[in-house]
């Protein structure tokens, strides 16, 4: 049914049209293929490169459960956990299939996938998600949901906490999001990042609401949690917000060394002119104010004491998280839930960014299970952005190659424009005159005459 149907269209169609597109586009092409689709993996074959065919299998274990599975009794959720073990190697092959658009490392078909590198894994996850109801996403009834978020850096898919959390959640559930990784918050529909434009055109910009919306659209990573685990999720999210968030803000935006050398540098380099001059500073002021108000209930002591207290609590919080995680793969067993998305976003930022003064980083590195947890998720769900990638040459090339062509082109264009302007001015104002005497010597004559003119002046 859907096998030959429209869903594949978008997959192979626009996706290779990379240039304008963000790499992170997750197409729901394979969504229709679900469990029963275990035999179907071959079906996307016709339009998909052979390599992709491999994806459904490995991808499936990695997917989070969704509401769908409920309708397929034989394929209980446990099935997925069982299949999870093969995932690391399996998904390890995933990145090889879909390549970053400009990378020439991939064979042509995956290159045609372009943005499909996300598709590959997501497709697999989509398959695992269970049967698709007729009206649902694969048919692309309305416009697909679009997510605007900060682009990646420091080895992460996104440098912003909220964007990272939402992205991770979307990856867990394989939601068909068109991800636009941008560096200009003014380009987002709501003026802030992250922002989700739903299929009905409304724009949501609060991360929790984005996740709630995804849940409503049946991309629910928490579907299989027991009531108690759901309660635990709420509790731990509050813990994160109260204890870790202030410190994260402080580490990245308030601590001078970090701010100047890492945060501001990244944002200033990433943002287009002229935003890079004032926007980072404005963001810093906003964060500082938020921090002050958040930490309002602390005693209003001097800076250092406050800082020490903050970090002390954060260290405690990290230890608590580590204790709660224990030796499990994810917080609630074998499949990731929304809590994992949030915890991962906090930890990944702390771990990956190369902070000059990273007191918390040192503590975090000491908690082995949290580090392993982070790298595990990174390699499973963000193999091309993560630090540990099976094809190592892909990582550095990945995020940059997409922007590279643009940047290079822009650079070249601007240089040419500058040169043209200078030459035009020189010609028009008479500083330089072209003598057609000897065509071969014209350039030489021109430079000579230019030099003479300059000397005279």
């Amino acid at each position, binding site marked *: 049914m859907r096998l030959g149907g429209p869903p594949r269209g978008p997959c192979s169609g626009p996706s290779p049209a990379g240039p304008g597109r963000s790499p992170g586009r997750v197409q729901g092409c394979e969504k229709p293929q679900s469990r029963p689709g275990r035999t179907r993996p071959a079906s996307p074959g016709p339009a998909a490169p052979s390599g992709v065919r491999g994806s459904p299998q490995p991808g499936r274990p990695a997917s989070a459960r969704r509401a769908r599975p409920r309708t397929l009794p034989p394929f209980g959720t446990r099935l997925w956990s069982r299949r999870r073990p093969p995932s690391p190697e399996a998904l390890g092959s995933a990145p090889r299939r879909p390549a970053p658009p400009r990378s020439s490392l991939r064979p042509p078909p995956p290159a045609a996938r372009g943005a499909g590198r996300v598709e590959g894994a997501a497709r697999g996850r989509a398959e695992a998600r269970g049967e698709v109801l007729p009206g649902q996403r694969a048919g692309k009834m309305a416009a697909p949901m679009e997510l605007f978020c900060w682009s990646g850096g420091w080895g992460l898919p996104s440098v912003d906490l909220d964007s990272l959390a939402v992205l991770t959640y979307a990856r867990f559930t394989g939601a068909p999001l068109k991800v636009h990784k941008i560096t200009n918050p003014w380009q987002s529909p709501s003026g802030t990042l992250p922002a989700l434009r739903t299929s009905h055109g409304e724009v949501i910009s*609060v991360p929790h609401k984005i996740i709630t919306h995804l849940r409503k659209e049946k991309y629910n990573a928490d579907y299989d949690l027991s*009531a*108690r685990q*759901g*309660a*635990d999720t*709420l*509790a*731990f*999210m*509050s*813990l994160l*917000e*109260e*204890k870790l968030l202030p410190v994260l803000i402080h580490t990245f935006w308030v601590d001078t060394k970090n701010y100047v050398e890492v945060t501001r540098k990244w944002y200033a380099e990433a943002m287009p002119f002229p935003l890079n001059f004032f926007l980072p500073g404005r963001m810093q002021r906003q964060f500082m*104010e*938020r921090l002050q*108000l*958040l930490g*309002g*209930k*602390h*005693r*209003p002591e001097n800076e250092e004491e406050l800082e020490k207290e903050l970090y002390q609590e954060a260290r*405690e*919080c990290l230890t*608590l*998280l580590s*204790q*709660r995680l*224990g030796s499990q793969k994810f917080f609630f067993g074998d499949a990731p839930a929304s809590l994992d998305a949030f915890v991962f976003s906090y930890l990944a930022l702390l771990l990956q960014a190369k902070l000059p003064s990273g007191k918390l980083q040192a503590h975090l590195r000491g908690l082995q299970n949290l580090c392993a947890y982070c790298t595990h998720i990174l390699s499973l769900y963000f193999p091309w952005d993560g630090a540990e990638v099976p094809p190592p040459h892909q990582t550095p090339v990945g995020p940059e190659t997409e922007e590279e062509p643009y940047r290079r082109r822009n650079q070249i264009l601007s240089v040419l424009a500058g040169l043209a302007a200078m030459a035009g001015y020189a010609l028009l104002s008479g500083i330089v005159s072209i003598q057609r005497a000897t065509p071969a010597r014209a350039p030489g004559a021109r430079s000579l005459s230019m030099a003479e003119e300059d000397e005279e002046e």
Partner: protein
Amino acid sequence: MQLLLLCRQGKKEKMERKAFLQMCNLPIKVVCRANAEYMSPSGKVPFIHVGNQVVSELGPIVQFVKAKGHSLSDGLDEVQKAEMKAYMELVNNMLLTAELYLQWCDEATVGEITHARYGSPYPWPLNHILAYQKQWEVKRKMKAIGWGNKTLDQVLEDVDQCCQALSQRLGTQPYFFNKQPTELDALVFGHLYTILTTQLTNDELSEKVKNYSNLLAFCRRIEQHYFEDRGKGSSSIKSS
């Protein structure tokens, strides 16, 4: 040691601290002072005054008491301690903020109850000025944490979610962890008790809590066990 629990006159006393201290079997005496907020080291009431030490806020009080040899959570293992801390944060995050919101950002309540109560110890015009100042402060904080745009219904929904989480965690046990009360129990009791017994313009908040029978039973149990048994006649939870 004799613990003095100081609270602000006219403000509802924070039951959780009282509950915690009573659970630890510590003798306390409650004193109400108008300037209690200024006496407190962190600006928050209530706080305890022991000998020549002053400690405010539940967290430091718990630690202070622990240092003196009384602790309620020694029997918990690491994972449970982590959960306990997380739930305490949840309560602080949701219930406390919701209470604040209701008190200061809901126009009806503010006009009728809060302004009057907050400014009652002071002469005119100080009562108005201070009340407005506090309201402005609270509103700013709400905006910073993202609650600024929430409507009353959304806040109530959040409270409902929080209560649901607590109720699910409590299940059919007498206390949140094992058979012994812990700081979490004190905290939850304090907040729920306050919600249930405070008269506000609308009763929706207490209605939300009353939806969960195990939470109600929990509150009543603690009240009976720790407050009425000791012969202290505090206002009891009205039967729902």
